């Protein structure tokens, strides 16, 4: 049994999810079908977008913000952040530039979310 708060709307339904049988996950406490699906997704394959920042060399700003291009498995959040530690990239950087390729074999990259031009 796992408990979640549904994030689809302000109602914030308290869901109880029984995942003892992975092929037949049972959700209770939802008000609408989006809540039921949220409960199922949260036990079977919870995912999160991860956003952070990376040091930039010779840029007009000292750091550039980054995101995982798509949501990654929730269990990989801290391992993915480890990959950014000590990483330094050279300016210029532009939105969408790949900052780190293929996070932990997920096939998903960290990409820049800000333009940082080169300082003169």
């Amino acid at each position, binding site marked *: 049994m796992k408990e979640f708060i*549904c*994030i689809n*709307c*302000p*109602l*914030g339904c308290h869901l109880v999810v029984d995942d003892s049988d992975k092929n037949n996950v049972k959700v209770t406490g939802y008000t609408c079908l989006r809540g039921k699906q949220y409960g199922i997704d949260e036990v079977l394959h919870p995912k999160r*977008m*991860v*956003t952070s920042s990376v040091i930039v060399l010779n840029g007009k700003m000292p*750091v550039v913000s980054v995101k995982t291009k798509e949501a990654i498995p929730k269990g990989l959040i801290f391992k993915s952040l480890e990959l950014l530690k000590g990483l330094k990239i050279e300016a210029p950087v532009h939105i969408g530039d790949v900052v780190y390729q293929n996070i932990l074999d997920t096939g998903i990259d960290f990409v820049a979310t800000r333009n940082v031009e080169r300082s003169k």
Partner: protein
Amino acid sequence: MKNVRILIIGGGPAGLAAAISAYDKGERDILILEREDKLGGILNQCIHNGFGLHTFKEELTGPEYAQRFIDQVNERQIKYLLNTTVIRVEENLEVKALNEEEGLLNIKAEAIILSCGCRERPRGGVNIAGSRGSGIYSAGTAQKLVNIDGLMPGKEVVILGSGDIGLIMARRMTFEGAKVKAVVELLPYSSGLNRNIVQCLNDFDIPLMFSHTVVDIKGEDRVTSVVIAEVDDHLNPKMETAQEIKCDTLLLSVGLLPENELAKGAGVSLSRITRGAYVDDNLMTSVPGIFECGNVLHVHDLVDFVSLEAKEAGEKAVEYINESEHIKIDRIEIKAEDGVRYVVPEFILKNNDASEMTLKMRVGNVYRKTKIVVEADGEVIHSKPKQIVTPGEMETIPLKSDEVLKLRNAKEIKVYLRSV
């Protein structure tokens, strides 16, 4: 004296969207004044995702959302001045501003759009007793230090207030290696979005303590601990429940205050509830030719709604300056009652054209199984059932043109909650 048709004060999401819509409405003589060294405003430091779902149907981070609007401003070659601080706006639409290169600028505008956003409520605004060691920051200041300057404000953190910025910063500090020991909320509910409580606190087992507050801050040079206590129904701390939490940093996320000093100087009448200007359905303030949009008008929870409101302000400002003469149209107040704290716009122009309109509002408490009712002279014009309304979420009521027409012809308009 320099003349400009439309002057926009503030180059954040509201100012950018207003400039683009004014241009698209046919006006070419537009100038944006921005205090910071880049356009984009607060979005530049909001590096988390969740922006733009309504506008672009995809989830962007703050800087990405801002860049889409900055690109549109640049494509249209709309003029802007950076590092430029406006120091005064006069009732006759004369503006004084300063920057390093040009010194004092005197600008005369035909319409002014105030899009100056908000400021954070500081420690003095919530009267926390205790020492004044370093390590006490507003959540937004900490956000700027981490995300723009690449600096960490501390290692062991307590956050007072569960507004969205506080929640977002709980996760951000955790990502950068800090230990967030607790988020302490005075009220029995959070003013933040559910999504942020789940994804910023629950995901990382950060405790959220409702009906608690900080009663003391300890540490001479640097914060060493804070004392928190539960509060009673009147929000007074119960000192027997006091407990000390060791930490080196206290972040305050205790509310946003629309930055209306310029508006005040120009004689614009302000609402004591929103702390923004009173506006009519053209988003014009009590001073003819001065418009407001975005967080300076009232605090929004989604930037998408700021962009929509600002688009309207840009269009209405162009319509205003193109009028051959400014006829004063009477306006009627939209009263907020029974659970509704405020409605924006506060006034609707009488006997004007029928057009679609969106009423924006916030409620004063959590209400379940209710409906939002718009009433004109005792007749229900619009009723929107809601499973739940909370103070943390702005509610919107889109009105059709025939409904708007009824409001324009009414003598008394009310918006209120009714339980169902």
